[in-house]
């Protein structure tokens, strides 16, 4: 059970890349030399998924043993990077809570933000630590009954989120969020199915 990252993004209706409003991640369970790449990938995947999440929709995207849950509420989008075991219900309760909390703290100011925000938002880091145990998020669920109303769309692969003609490989190559090192990790992981050494 692991939440690796929580993010809040601003989705632009005209289809340009979403802007990161807040980002909290915990990459300590990754190898020392992989951590910077993992962080880059979180940003990259977060942007990719949020960009393709229509307003008012909840979706879960499966990527190997991880799931990216996202909820776009009127252009403000919350994302959670969880592993496969984290109950979907708890994940979306948490995202709901994050969005409420964001609006309470920052109001409507997000609508005018144009560039990524690197300032940490303490609440998000606290939430990341607290909700590692889904039992905590379950408590939220008991309060938020309205959750059942919108359906969740489940994507079995990240490719199925992409539009026709788009390929993850080419997005990885083009992305400015990924360094050369991360691209190498991506290719290597693909080649070796992420379980073997480099030689």
């Amino acid at each position, binding site marked *: *059970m692991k939440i690796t990252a929580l993010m809040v993004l601003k989705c632009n209706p005209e289809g340009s890349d979403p802007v990161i409003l807040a980002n909290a991640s915990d990459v300590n*369970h*990754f*190898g*020392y*030399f*992989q951590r*910077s790449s993992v962080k880059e990938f979180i940003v990259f995947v977060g942007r990719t998924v949020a960009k393709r999440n229509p307003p008012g929709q909840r979706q879960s995207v499966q990527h190997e*043993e991880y799931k990216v849950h996202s909820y776009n509420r009127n252009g403000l989008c919350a994302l959670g990077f969880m*592993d*496969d*075991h984290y*109950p*979907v*219900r708890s994940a*979306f309760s948490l995202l709901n809570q994050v969005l409420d909390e964001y609006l309470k703290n920052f109001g409507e100011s997000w609508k005018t933000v144009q560039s990524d925000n690197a300032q940490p938002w303490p609440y998000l880091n606290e939430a990341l630590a607290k909700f*590692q*145990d*889904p*039992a905590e998020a*379950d408590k939220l669920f008991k309060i938020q009954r309205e959750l*059942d109303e919108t*359906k*969740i769309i*489940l994507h079995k692969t990240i490719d199925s989120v992409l539009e026709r003609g788009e390929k993850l490989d080419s997005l990885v190559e083009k992305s400015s969020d990924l*360094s*050369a*090192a991360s691209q*190498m*990790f991506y290719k290597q992981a693909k080649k070796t199915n992420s*379980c*073997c*050494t*480099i*030689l």
Partner: protein
Amino acid sequence: MDEPDPLELLNHLEGILESDPLIDEIGFIHPSQFVLLNEDVGTPSTSVDSVQTTNFRTLFWIRDHKLGISTKVLFPLYVAAKNAFVEAYKNYKLLQRDDKHASMCCSSSSLSLESELMKHSRALLILSCDFGTAWNSRKLVLSKKQSLSMFMNELIFSSVILSHSPKSEQAWSQRRWVIKMIAGNCSNLQEIMERESELVKKLAERSKMNYRAWYHRCWLVSYMSVEQVLQEFNKSREWAGLHVADNSCFHYRERLMLRLFEESEHSQDQDASFDPELHKLLKDEFNWVEKLIKRYVGREALWLHRRFLLTCWIRYFACGDHDRSLASNQRNIRAVDIDMLIDNELELFRSCTILPDSDFEDYQAQATFAATYMVWLKRVLCFIYFFNLAVSFELFTQLILYVLNQQLAGALAIDIQKVETSRVKSLLTNVCPEKSLLWNYLPELCM
């Protein structure tokens, strides 16, 4: 800059490994990462200040006992390490043969050859962790030396390898070999067990479904003291509860429980086979799993663990009336116990087969697991009633197999109609239609 000389690279790597025995993590890194890594720490490294180090600063990175090797030099480095190792191994073997004739084993040349072999095999394994000959050559030297500190260093070395390839079978098996070698003559075996167990926990967090790591942890159980087994059982609970999709930790807990039951059987004489502490332990585990099943919908590992618990219960606590040695009140406790147990399972089954009108969780999977669990339970209960609980566990499993083959169970007239077969059947057909052919045979299978 010219391509660096492979031999120099190897010397440099071996120098680093020699100078920092506390290296605990290794990674192969992209050349562009060096800039980033150096930025993070500020000033460049000044620990080794020979002329050649500056050339290697963009190829090797070491700080805080983390060693990074540039992917650019991996191939020449590997070739050099392999050649050096093969040469050293050949010489060592030759000398060993000569030594046998001359019956002198501690000559200075043999010492230096040994250290050469250890040095080169270490570099080689860091670059390619599944090089079996290199692992075996290390075993050869270690078993000849029989030095406790060398054995301990080998454990450290193996965990360095595991830091970047946590599924390396050879590295795990080297650990087991070392533990076997030192088990008889080391005073802090319990402490080592604890460290091994922690290592598995740490690596399991990093690499999911790591069978080799968990196999290792299960293997450790036979070397643990009973107190330690109990400790491990309590400690692993939290991890298991947070990794419900990973069967491995539940399997580990099963192994620990079996050991506790074995111990209790050995320590007690015939007329007092009832151990209240174990009884409580099993009961707690039962309730805990039930809580998890309800919280984490559709996780097969939890249902399988429950099957194990129930089997344990039947074997150790649900002995029947035939057991004359039991005091009558104990017999009553057990009869009440098993009735309550079955009622409880039926209740669980009912609550897990309600299909709510939402796609939030895997309720379909949950219902399938609950129903197949019920079918299984019914089979098990057939035997309990039929054989009046008088069978030993071995016989019990044999009989299950026998009856599964013979379809004998249909002939057993048993009063457990509480389990609603038809409901199970329609439910299974509903939630798992792709196996409808199988479900059609269900009444025959479990009546």
